[in-house]
């Protein structure tokens, strides 16, 4: 069975490894350059110095950090688009491995050959799922570690790693997405019985599930926290290095009513009397308000999302296996 799986899928495996090597050939030099610049410009030291508290006494150092971060972003803004590619890659791996795994056999009728030899269908399926799943897992781990490393400086310069896109290509979730995509491909292949429709179904299904979890479930894994701070004051303004994921913000009056959504009034320069007058219009007790997921929940959220997708993977494979027993 092991030999059969290798013989049937060796081409795909070799191509995947080649693609991974090609990707590494591009990502390693650019990543090294980016990491070098991140440290050489002093941006890393600067951001490290700010700590991860939500609020921070505003000082010239903070502004300097923000300027460094800005310059870094300018330099590598094009590369940020690569993140979109990194989001899409796992689903392609999944669809190209998963969908044909059973569907090609059903399409060409070879299941009638292989299921009538002296090996049970369940063993056949488990060996295939296991080996292909194991190989995908290995590739996904290398991929996730590499992409995480590559992206760290850019994400730190831009803001929070909890944000959309940054969260999706870092940590362990890309591994779970990839395994889920493979399982979805297998499932679609078993139910639709043809390679191309199965690929289409898997692609669409992946987009729907990922979108739903990302937009509806992820912000609600834990109740968000609230942050309030004075309007226009120098002390205690948001820390750009906190890593917090902002969900909503605005200005609330003394009674706590939201009087201006999506607005924030930062420190007023001491000489600017206009700024101070504007603040007074909101009345006494008005303050900046922010709803956020704290940056230190990154690994917790990664764990929850990984758990969701691994559970879905197991469910899809179990359903595929159950269905497989009834096919002929």
């Amino acid at each position, binding site marked *: 069975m092991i030999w*059969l799986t290798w*013989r049937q899928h060796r081409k795909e495996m070799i191509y995947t490894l080649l693609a991974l090597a090609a990707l590494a050939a591009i990502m390693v030099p650019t990543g090294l350059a980016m990491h070098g610049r991140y440290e050489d410009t002093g941006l890393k030291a600067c951001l490290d110095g700010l700590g991860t508290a939500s609020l921070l006494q505003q000082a010239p150092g903070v502004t300097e950090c923000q300027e460094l971060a800005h310059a870094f972003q300018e330099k590598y803004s094009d590369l940020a688009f690569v993140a979109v590619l990194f989001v899409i890659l796992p689903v392609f791996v999944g669809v190209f491995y998963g969908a044909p795994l059973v569907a090609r056999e059903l399409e060409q009728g070879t299941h009638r*050959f292989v299921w*009538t030899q002296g090996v*049970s269908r369940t063993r056949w399926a488990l060996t295939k799922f296991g080996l292909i799943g194991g190989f995908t897992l290995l590739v996904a781990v290398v991929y996730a570690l590499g992409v995480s490393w590559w992206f760290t400086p850019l994400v730190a310069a831009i803001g929070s790693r909890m944000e959309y896109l940054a969260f999706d290509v870092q940590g362990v979730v890309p591994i779970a997405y990839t395994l889920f995509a493979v399982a979805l491909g297998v499932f679609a292949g078993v139910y639709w019985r043809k390679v191309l429709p199965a690929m289409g179904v898997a692609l669409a299904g992946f987009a729907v599930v990922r979108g739903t979890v990302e937009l509806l479930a992820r912000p609600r894994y834990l109740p968000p926290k609230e942050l309030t701070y004075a309007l226009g004051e120098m002390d205690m303004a948001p820390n750009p290095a906190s890593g917090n994921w902002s969900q909503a913000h605005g200005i609330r009056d003394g009674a706590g009513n939201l009087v201006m959504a999506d607005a924030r009034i930062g420190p007023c320069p001491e000489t600017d009397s206009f700024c101070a007058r504007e603040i007074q219009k909101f009345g006494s007790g008005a303050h900046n308000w922010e709803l956020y997921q704290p940056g230190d929940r990154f690994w917790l959220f990664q764990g929850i999302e990984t758990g969701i997708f691994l559970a879905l993977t197991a469910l899809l494979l179990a359903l595929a296996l159950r269905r497989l027993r009834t096919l002929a």
Partner: protein
Amino acid sequence: MEQALEAEDLGKRYGRAWALRDCSFELPAGRVAALVGPNGAGKSTLLHLAVGLLKPDTGRVRVFGREPHGAPATLGEIGFVAQDTPLYRDFTARELISLGGRLNRRWDAALARDRLSALGIPPDRPVGKLSGGQRAQVALALALAKRPRLLLLDEPVAALDPLARREFMQALMGAVAESETTVLFSSHLLSELERTCDHLIVLQTAHVQLSGSVDELLDGHRLLVGPRDAAPPDGVEKVVRAAHTERQSTLLVRSRALPAPAPGWTEREVSLEDLVLAYLADTETRDVETAWEVTA
């Protein structure tokens, strides 16, 4: 007598439609049997049940006394060549023989190699690039290499040209003669049946219409020609099919040898082809009449 294959009230349903229903028959070991019926009669379903690809919805099927579904040990006793002889098209014949050895406990690789070499089939060309006839021979060699006690073939020659068809049947008959393998092959072609098989199962619209050894079946049926609309003579168990011209009736009847020649009737022996056609046509007419709500 040991039964190689037996079915007992066997039924299989796809959704609400029965692909096979109330199907009972026995196939004694050592026979070469043809499974005959038009397309869609349930032949593939029956073979898939016998080789354990499908699980029965009703009744049971046994191969040498054991149910084949989900039993790899029983599968070792059965060689199966599926319709259109599906093989991994990018595998070479040599790789397929090696694969069979990895998937089966009992495997006679030398047998498969000898057969293919005798037929002049290249060992290192992907089987997808072989002709249909050659690919069918590879599939047959792989099935035989299991040294099966029961060999099932689903329309093995349907897609082949006449020459390849004859070569395949020769190869099959030659292999079977050497071993004591029981064979059941499905076909919707009636020619050549008489030469190749000694047992017959006729399937029509999901039901077994006729089953038994060819000799007994031929012995138990007669073709009677007599005056039109006369009552069939005594000793006739059942009129399978009646055809009428203006003055004559031709009846295919089920009956042992008639006690005495009936006055006015001439008796003839039936051919296997007559017999099969009579049973197939019989149900067809009845079904159509039922569908049109006409009483026969």
